[in-house]
């Protein structure tokens, strides 16, 4: 028999895990092509802000969602211009993207702080609602993005490991030189991976403002971008393992919210530390073994195609 706390945590884990999963999947795609985008936090913020603002103006969350996805793709295209075409340092470019996201999201969102919006609609299939312990909770009462999270993870896995395009992306990530020699264009593949990854990151940000909180606040992603980057390492660059990671961290966040809502004696600030400390601990436990799983060309700039 499940206790209400466990139910609440489970329901919350799925809800807050959704944006983490989309962000992690996006970064996984990008990193598989050999590029680290440390600016993911900024892309999430821009997605959340643009998604919310467009929804506030148009009154339609689907337009907001589309705008957020587009924003994510464009942001990553800008990043790609720097690191692929201009061959700039990836870490510094990522941090520049982070700053850009901080600033642009604040600028775009400022007129809409406090706006009341209609979020993404949530529904629960009748046969699930009929289950006795489900009806009283928020379990299975999800929006489209949450319902699609698992299929999208499968899709990203399938694309990466079962299609020619995915093979090309992974080849570039392992060795751009070899991929180039075998007739592939590393720059094109990296831009495509960045574009799709950016769309996923934009959706991740939008899920926060359009479904989870229904507000816009500066810095509202609170480090989720960095947690997602850690989750990519945790999941060993595998989209399916990312599902488990996102649920685990969504669960940590949900547990903290549930404990706070129940008037736990532990200070909320201590509870707020959980996701970050847990991330560090997981990376620590993973330790040295992860190196074998990382794309060999990750973070290196490819100068060879000229």
């Amino acid at each position: 028999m499940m206790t209400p706390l466990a139910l609440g945590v489970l329901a919350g884990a799925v809800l807050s895990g959704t944006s983490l999963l989309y962000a992690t999947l996006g970064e996984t795609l990008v990193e598989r092509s050999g590029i680290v985008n440390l600016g993911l936090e900024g892309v999430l913020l821009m997605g959340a802000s643009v998604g919310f603002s467009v929804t506030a103006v148009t009154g339609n969350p689907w337009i907001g969602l589309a705008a957020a996805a587009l924003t994510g793709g464009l942001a990553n295209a800008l990043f790609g211009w720097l690191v692929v075409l201009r061959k700039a340092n990836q870490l510094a470019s990522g941090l520049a993207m982070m700053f850009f996201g901080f600033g642009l999201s604040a600028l775009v969102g400022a007129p809409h702080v406090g706006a009341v919006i209609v979020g993404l609609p949530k529904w629960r299939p009748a046969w699930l609602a009929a289950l006795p312990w489900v009806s009283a909770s928020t379990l299975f009462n999800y929006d489209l993005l949450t319902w699609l999270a698992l299929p999208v993870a499968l899709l990203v896995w399938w694309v990466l490991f079962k299609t020619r395009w995915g093979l090309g992306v992974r080849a570039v990530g392992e060795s751009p030189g070899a991929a180039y020699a075998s007739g592939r264009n590393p720059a094109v593949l990296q831009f495509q991976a960045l574009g799709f990854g950016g769309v996923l990151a934009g959706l991740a940000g939008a899920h926060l403002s359009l479904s989870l909180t229904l507000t816009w606040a500066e810095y509202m992603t609170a480090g989720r971008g960095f947690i997602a980057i850690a989750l990519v390492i945790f999941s060993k660059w595998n989209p399916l393992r990312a599902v488990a990671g996102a649920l685990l961290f969504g669960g940590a966040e949900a547990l903290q919210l549930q404990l706070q809502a129940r008037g736990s004696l532990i200070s909320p600030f201590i509870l707020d530390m959980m996701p970050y400390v847990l991330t560090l601990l997981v990376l620590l436990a993973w330790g040295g073994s992860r190196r074998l799983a990382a794309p060999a060309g990750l973070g290196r700039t490819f100068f060879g195609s000229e």
Partner: protein
Amino acid sequence: MSETALRPILRPILRHTLVAGAALALFSAILLVAGKNPLQAAADSFRSMASVYGFSELLVRMTPLILTAVAVALPSRLGLINVGGEGQLYMGAWMATAGALWFPPLPRWAMLPLVAAMGFLGGALWAAIPGILRAAKLVNETIATLLLNYVAPLIVSYSIFGPWKALGSSAYPESPAYPDAALLPTFFETRVHGGLILALLALLAYWLLVDKTRWGLQMRAIGGNAEAAQRLGIPVAMFLVAALALGGGMAGLAGMGEAMGVHGRLRQGLSPGFGFTGFLIAWLAGGRPLGILFMAFLFAIITAAGDTLQITQGLPFSVVNILLAMILFIVLARRPGASR
């Protein structure tokens, strides 16, 4: 003759001016699109800085920026990427506060060095965590320092909402005021405080360490090729931890300066991103001490402009981050390099 002699000096100045001009133009374009008046914003910013007091405020702002830049530059000599200046700054302020509130009443000459040492220690210990994790080859220091940035402000919040909560302060929770002996002296009836001297000394010490000592040479050896350095008998792991801890200590001093020199208490929001800005300064300056000084001043101007934007144009302070990003984008796009 004078023309050729001046060229090496004029060229970088021209280059920097061009970069700043291009970044400002892009930023202005974005402000225009957002329906704001960039010329008015520039005029307002200039007016707020063009006075003795306005200038002194730039020095106040520059103080933590120099320290957080050194916090990044020092470990970067070993190839370490410290993006955790923000968290280290908060832990420095936190430890310094612990000292100021817990030490028995002491005269100023004893109290000030004590709280400064505590501030340094707070940042150093906080940075030692990713240092040890990296030296043990367990967790990459970039991601560890980034994550710890989110934990440190929560420790500060926990303390000022809990054990250190000042009585009678309800709206904005904060620690009790520090005893007078723990307050940094201020100069010339401005808010410029003793932290500036500390920051300049730290910059000098950094220059001496990396340029004039054997350690500096060994650090560069590790940064060049850690494996070879290890074979030469340099204790690489110890250097990694020590460099990050020393850097963290510098950021800790910045936090101590903000708490003891500017606010007089421990507060949330002690830093509007000084730690991150310090990273940019160190990176743009290539770790050169004079470059850090120059860039810290430049970034003080930019963040001061951010304040003006907030007050006169009703824009959030974080909007100034766009200008920072524009400068970085231009520099990054102009300077291709996998090396740095």
